[in-house]
């Protein structure tokens, strides 16, 4: 057992840290989930790409550094520690790309991955529908065979940053006769194609982070089918665990939030407004972030030893999403009467980031598969309990 990084990895950390120090905007960018902020975030993504840091763990031919999982974790730690902008390319990089690496043709990989990493093309997910959320396989949007491709019709919803992205990826029903999980196919759709209508939806936190996407006879060429026709459920699920597990929310993100919480505590204590309850909550949040980090170090060791890490990632997702909520609750408790001040209030502490962050944290137990679904997955696939009725 050795819980220290090798000198080479620490040298990589130093390089990343120096680059971030020199390049992260000193004033935080406006939220990437607004039209203005999105454009600025895309500019930032391009600089990150040019420096080689957009997708450190990808092979070099697609714009990555071919870095190990350890270095990916180090990069993430440094990225969030530096307070760098949120990744508006995240859904493409963390959700679509792993599926492309596993099921994509060489042509698809060559055409899509580099452009995704450089933010030339930005991606939104098309999973949920008005009547298919947790029961995703109940989706009704359909695709019909036409010459040279497919025509897609239906309605998708809760598409993160869908109002600003260029393209989307998701499941559509290609065989209406087949049983629920069969007869689905994984498509990639151009939002600029005729027949696509995108309606922005304002989120709880006030940003236009969601969109509804209406599709009416939208042509998608065969080249944009990912994996085999009618095999979409398997294709989508093969990498779904990576979303919940390691990649979507690396420990560095929460460790950085915990460090900022500690800093807030120190400032509030200096003002004489931090009591023993707040002090305890701060330490607990930090400890949980540490526990998640240690659990991740263990998981990565297992992965490098060739073990398959599948359904256990659901357990991670429950843990980090609930930890994020309690961490922000601790911050609001510390802020006391100032907690309600939002980003536009002049007197808001830290630019109102804590209330904003709290609201975003509340989405965690809902997105990427609700925590109820994740608990079902752990019960059935990790513990071997019988499926519900």
């Amino acid at each position, binding site marked *: 057992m*050795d*819980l220290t990084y090798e000198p080479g990895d620490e040298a990589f950390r130093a390089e990343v840290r120096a680059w971030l120090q020199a390049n992260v905007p000193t004033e935080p960018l406006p939220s990437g989930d607004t039209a203005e902020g999105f454009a600025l975030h895309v500019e930032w993504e391009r600089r990150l790409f040019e420096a080689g840091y957009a997708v450190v763990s990808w092979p070099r031919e697609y714009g990555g550094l071919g870095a190990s999982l350890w270095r990916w974790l180090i990069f993430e730690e440094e990225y969030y520690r530096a307070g760098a902008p949120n990744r508006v390319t995240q859904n493409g990089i963390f959700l679509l790309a792993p599926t492309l690496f596993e099921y994509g043709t060489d042509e698809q990989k060559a055409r899509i991955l580099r452009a995704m990493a450089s933010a030339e093309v930005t991606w939104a997910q098309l999973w949920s529908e008005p009547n298919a959320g947790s029961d995703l396989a109940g989706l009704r949007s359909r695709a019909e065979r036409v010459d040279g491709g497919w025509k897609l019709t239906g309605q998708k919803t809760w598409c993160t940053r869908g109002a600003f992205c260029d393209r989307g990826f998701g499941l559509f029903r290609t065989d209406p006769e087949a049983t629920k999980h069969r007869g689905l196919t994984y498509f990639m759709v151009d939002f600029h194609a005729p027949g696509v209508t995108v309606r922005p939806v304002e989120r709880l936190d006030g940003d236009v982070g969601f969109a509804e996407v209406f599709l009416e006879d939208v042509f998608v060429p065969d080249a944009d089918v990912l994996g085999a026709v009618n095999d979409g459920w398997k294709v989508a699920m093969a990498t779904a665990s990576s979303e919940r597990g390691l990649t979507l929310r690396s420990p560095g993100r929460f460790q950085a939030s915990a460090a900022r919480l500690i800093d807030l505590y120190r400032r509030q204590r200096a003002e004489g407004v931090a009591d023993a309850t707040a002090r305890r909550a701060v330490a607990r949040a930090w*400890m949980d972030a540490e526990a998640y980090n240690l659990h991740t170090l*263990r998981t990565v060791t297992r992965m490098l030893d060739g073990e398959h890490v599948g359904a256990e990632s659901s357990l991670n997702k429950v843990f980090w999403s609930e930890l994020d909520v309690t961490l922000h609750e601790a911050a609001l408790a510390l802020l006391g009467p100032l907690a309600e001040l939002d980003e536009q209030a002049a007197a808001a502490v830290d630019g109102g980031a804590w209330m904003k962050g709290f609201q975003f944290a509340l989405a965690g137990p809902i997105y990427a598969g609700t925590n*109820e679904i994740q608990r079902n997955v752990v019960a059935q696939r*990790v*513990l071997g309990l019988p499926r519900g009725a």
Partner: protein
Amino acid sequence: MRFAFSEEQLAVQQACRQMLRAHCTADHVHAAWTSQAGRVPGLWGRLTELGVPGLMAPEWAEGLALGEEELALVLEECGRVGTPEPVIEHVAVAVPLLAEAIAAAERAQADGAALETARAALRAAAAGEALLAVGLRPGEPVSYAGQADHALLVDRATGALHLVPRAALTVEEQTSVDRTRRPGLVTWQPDAATLLLAGEAAGELCARALDRGAFASAAFLVGLADRMVQLGVEYAKVREQFGKAIGSFQAVQHRIVNACIALEMARPVVWRAAWSLASGQPEASLHCSMARIHGVEAAERAAREILQIHGAIGYTTEYELHLWMKRTWSLASAWGTVREHEQRVERALLGAE
């Protein structure tokens, strides 16, 4: 970076697991409840065959000279079967403390006769022939005090560490919610003959021993939590109501999963404390407190959730669950409360209040 045990370490764990599975069943533990010593006849001897009593003892005392990483694995196995033997007190705390105190006394060129007694006590303890009890916080009950051949005790007045023979101890035995535990309130007179180590050196070694106790109890509690979660899973698969296994109901599943998550997140925290102690990390104390908090809470959570999903059968002494719950509660009150360890973490992280 590598967060895994070596093949050799896993072999030690495997040997323990196999032996304990056969010789420390729920029936054995249940029988220990009403036995004179609260222990399983012959089990200490079997642990001795595996070298467990002297796991942390140096080679000169014919110990295995292994470290906290191996200890973490062995204690988790002991916890999994609720071993009612002094594996935390004697194996994880007293033996390494005595060895370190002897080394420190040798460096300070202490009195030869007292040291010779201490060396003999360590050899006997490492060989599993003599039992060491340990009481580092004056006034708190000392487990196994009534059975111990020697007790390592801290003098309240001076903070010095003494090695006190049984004959010099008065033990007022108490009963614990876990009847295999025999905590005793001890009274004794410190004198020159029992003095092992005084001054700052004693304080430092005792602090490290308390850290080891916090970590070791956490490792044991992780094993207990694992046992309770498994018991809950097995029960929920076979117990039927409304015509189906109760384990198919979401309300039941989610309770078990909550216990499972607390357990899975606690285990790496405990292992990190093991690594920290074994490799002498400067933050080892902090890591032990974190291990203790997560370990206690994982086991308490498991006790609570798994009792609930069992319903009334879990609330009897005819079924095994109570054995693991009661050990959980008793170990939650030893080696520092969760709140006390939280405060240690708070001081390390946030400075003085």
